[in-house]
């Protein structure tokens, strides 16, 4: 099919707009760094506190040379992914339990509310004592933060299923298991998928918080170590790397979400 000139013009306009947006975005980032660099060099901002891009890149370069930057990145990524997967799997399982046993849900309701409103970082020191000063503590911390959110999101999805559809299955004398597999899970598919996005953010918060409390490796460790020795370039490097990691992870989850939802509907 050949395109009409209007269609062609429309598509060209859209393409141009997209390009323009990208260009401006890059421009913002570049000028931000240049401005930062210049202000630091000319004493407009305190270089000791805010560091400057050239020092940051220098620090990152040295970290790579010292050959342990990737170790730190790998540790943090590993913790995030383990917490993320555990959060989804456990969250899904607990949500099913709560849904299938309403009495259990009623009994646990106040405790879940308490756990949900509790600032989880407060139990961090306790976790360290129980799990030890290691990677397990970090993952537990992250799991504590993402799990409750996953459970609540997925459980709410289950509860919002159209009651007519449940009645329909009841009229066919469906068993609990059949209801779960033919209706509850497929109907909450998109809820479960969208809980992934929330879960990845929560996992990152939890992991960095955990690394702040106890760690020998990881980006959170770099940041906290940098603060302790007043190496603000190291702190800024950590933050910069973290921004990049979280941006990439988020984009990956969104891409996964698109893919999973496209196949389904």
């Amino acid at each position, binding site marked *: 099919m050949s395109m009409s000139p209007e269609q062609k013009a429309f598509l060209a306009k859209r393409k141009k707009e997209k390009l323009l947006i990208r260009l401006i975005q890059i421009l913002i980032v570049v000028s931000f760094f240049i401005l930062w660099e210049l202000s630091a060099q000319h004493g407009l901002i305190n270089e000791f506190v805010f560091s400057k891009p050239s020092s940051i890149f220098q620090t990152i370069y040295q970290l790579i040379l010292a050959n342990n930057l990737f170790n730190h990145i790998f540790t943090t990524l590993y913790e995030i992914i383990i917490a993320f997967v555990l959060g989804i799997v456990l969250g899904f399982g607990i949500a099913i339990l709560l849904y299938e046993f309403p009495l259990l849900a009623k009994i646990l309701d106040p405790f879940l509310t308490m756990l949900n409103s509790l600032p989880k970082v407060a139990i961090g020191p306790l976790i360290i004592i129980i799990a030890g000063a290691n990677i397990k503590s970090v993952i537990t911390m992250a799991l504590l933060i993402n799990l409750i959110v996953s459970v609540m999101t997925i459980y709410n999805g289950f509860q919002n299923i159209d009651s*007519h559809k449940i*009645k329909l299955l009841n009229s*066919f*004398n469906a068993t609990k298991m*059949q209801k779960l597999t033919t209706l509850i899970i497929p109907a909450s*598919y998109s809820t479960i998928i969208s809980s992934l996005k929330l879960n990845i953010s929560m996992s990152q918060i939890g992991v960095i918080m955990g690394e702040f409390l106890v760690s020998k490796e990881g980006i959170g460790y770099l940041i906290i170590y940098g603060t302790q020795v007043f190496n603000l370039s190291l702190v800024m490097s950590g933050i910069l790397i973290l921004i990049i990691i979280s941006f990439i992870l988020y984009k990956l989850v969104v891409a996964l979400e698109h893919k999973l939802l496209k196949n*389904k*509907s």
Partner: protein
Amino acid sequence: MTKLLEIKNLSKNYQTLKGEIPAILNIDLDVYDGEFIAIVGSSGCGKSTLLNILANLDNYTSGVINYHKKNLKIGYMLQEDALFPWLTILDNALLGLKIEKKLTESNIAYVKNLLQTYGLGDFLDKYPSELSGGMKQRVALIRTLAIKPDILLLDEPFSALDYQSRLAVSNDVYKIIKKEHKTVIMITHDIAEAISLASRIVVLSKRPAKIKSIYEVKLANPSDPISNRQDKKFTTYYDQIWRDLDVNVA
């Protein structure tokens, strides 16, 4: 005519924290093979409760329900089409059979044939979102017919549709039901719908629902539901039932 079902002295009370609410009271009704019974009552009178009890989705407080056929099978068609958006039309129509683990080749062929016969042959692999409201309602009916019920319960099956489609779809559904020789119990609050479709109309009182009157519908020229609305005896029934319902327009 053979009797399929006998309801004797059926009552149901709902238990709430504030006390007991009688929903239906001493209902007696016999259901014969091939009948189309419409149960008419004002909203909230307890007619849905009666249907839920017959469909075995709710229990009753006292009374007896005698089934005059072994393993009498009951099919329930809900107010909403309740189609699963992630399943194709064919899979939706096969849902009941799948749940009952009766996905045999002959049953699948039967459902495909029903879909074909009732104008859905080109939509087997389509999804519910691609169908009109009337078509969805037809799929819902076929999903119920698929399990080969002896009695079909219809819970205000057209009330979710706009007036135009409502007439057209009730015409369609009526034809399908007659062609498949099904016994039907339909509840509705629409008097005209009841007269145009049913062979017998049971009028229920306000809550708790008791049987107020029963009419054998004998139109002068019985035809399809839309034409039945033009029948000269239509208004006579309408006026009588309207009086029975005793609606207070305050």
